[in-house]
């Protein structure tokens, strides 16, 4: 398995660290400027969700190397309150933080694969993958 990098998200500054780490990994494996920026924005959204809604959590990165394609996988793990109604937070226009954030639908649009699991009172795990074009 490829090496895994993680950033603990405790304060707002950690969001920047996660973005930086993600962007560096993306650049290393050959992502272009636009996709680096998209990935960084997706990481921002995920990390900000942890920062705002969960007690503790982390953002991890894995390089996904398959025979015919290569990509980067971002995993957001938290031990927050969990999401009650996932289909609702995946709806466009629904955002608890007042609407300006791209929210999870925005994250989904920025990446190629999106998977979310959440358990109330336990936490949330989101895995997204962006493939190298």
């Amino acid at each position, binding site marked *: 398995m490829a090496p895994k990098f993680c950033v603990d998200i405790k304060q707002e500054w950690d969001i920047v660290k996660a973005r930086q780490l993600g962007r560096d990994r993306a650049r290393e494996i050959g992502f272009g400027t636009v996709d680096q*920026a998209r990935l960084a924005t997706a990481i921002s959204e995920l990390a900000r969700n942890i920062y705002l809604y969960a007690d503790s959590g982390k953002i991890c990165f894995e390089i996904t190397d398959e025979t015919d394609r290569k990509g980067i996988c971002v995993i957001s793990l938290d031990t927050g309150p969990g999401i009650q109604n996932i289909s609702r937070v995946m709806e*466009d*226009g629904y955002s608890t933080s007042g609407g300006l954030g*791209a929210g999870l639908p925005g994250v989904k649009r920025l990446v190629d694969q999106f998977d979310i699991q959440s358990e109330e009172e336990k936490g949330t795990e989101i895995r997204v993958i962006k493939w190298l074009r």
Partner: protein
Amino acid sequence: METLNTEIHNYRNLLKHYIQIRDEQSLYGAEQLSKAFIKDNVPPEEIINLHIRAMAELYPDSPDHFQDSMNFLLEVMISYGIAHQEYRSLREEQSELKSEIAVAANMQDTLLTTTKPEVDGLDIGVVSVPAHQMSGDYYHFLKGEDDSLGIAVADVIGKGIPAALCMSMIKYSMDSLPEATMSPKTILKNLNRVVERNVDSSMFITMFYAQFLPYENKLWYASAGHEPGFHYDAATKTFEEIKAKGLVLGVTPDTDYREYERTIDKGDMVILLTDGVTECRQGDRFIETDEVLGVIKQYADLPAQEMVNKVYKHFERMQNFQLRDDFTLIVLRKEV
């Protein structure tokens, strides 16, 4: 992707040409290109990237700070790109919703349809137009076995889909009443019970029910808080309000309605309407009842259907062809 490649190529050439001679032609080309990008759903950050690449090819020696600034701009555009995609998908959803509503509106037309009856000696005109796709107004004709004619006009306080759903219920309750033997006050009493039991307490329905007995020259009627109609007296050429007291449907379970009687002579007209007619607006001003009657009088010599059509056209135009409320106007003229 094929088209995108052509666009990249076009973009670079246009940009080059423009920087050389700064002509309007190139800017016109940029406009065309911009439309093509929108059509192909190219997000703003992609366009900036295109610009960066084109500039790098055209001016490989441009200073670092310029390139850095462009990368910075690209980063700023990412969220706009998401917002743009969201806008697109919401717009698709909206058009799906619109077509669903159109189907529902068609169904409503079929469900609520009532045919204008042929009654000897009576000329009837009806116009009923919703403000939005679905109507909260309702009218219905019932021809009794004794040649009597029942006419219901109802209005749900509120517009659009909730009002329309409510109206379908009224229609089916009316269908289930044993029509021929019922008097206006009994019909309203029954409907009131149905509405009170089945409709949310925040929703009110007003209704005017009239029964016309042609051989007795009599109009029997009762009202559940509905906009009063008018009686046009042919002899004096004047209008009189058809006053009737009664509580709107659905407020209390056991409401009794009072029944009124009126003599209709030859040439007289009975005008029934909803508040979409009397509350027409010109700019911010509500029109006066006298204005409505004035317009009706203006066309009083026409056959009833032509008359209501003309009156509707008048107010439609006055409101700049945008109705604020559902508009229903019924005219009965006694010919013999």
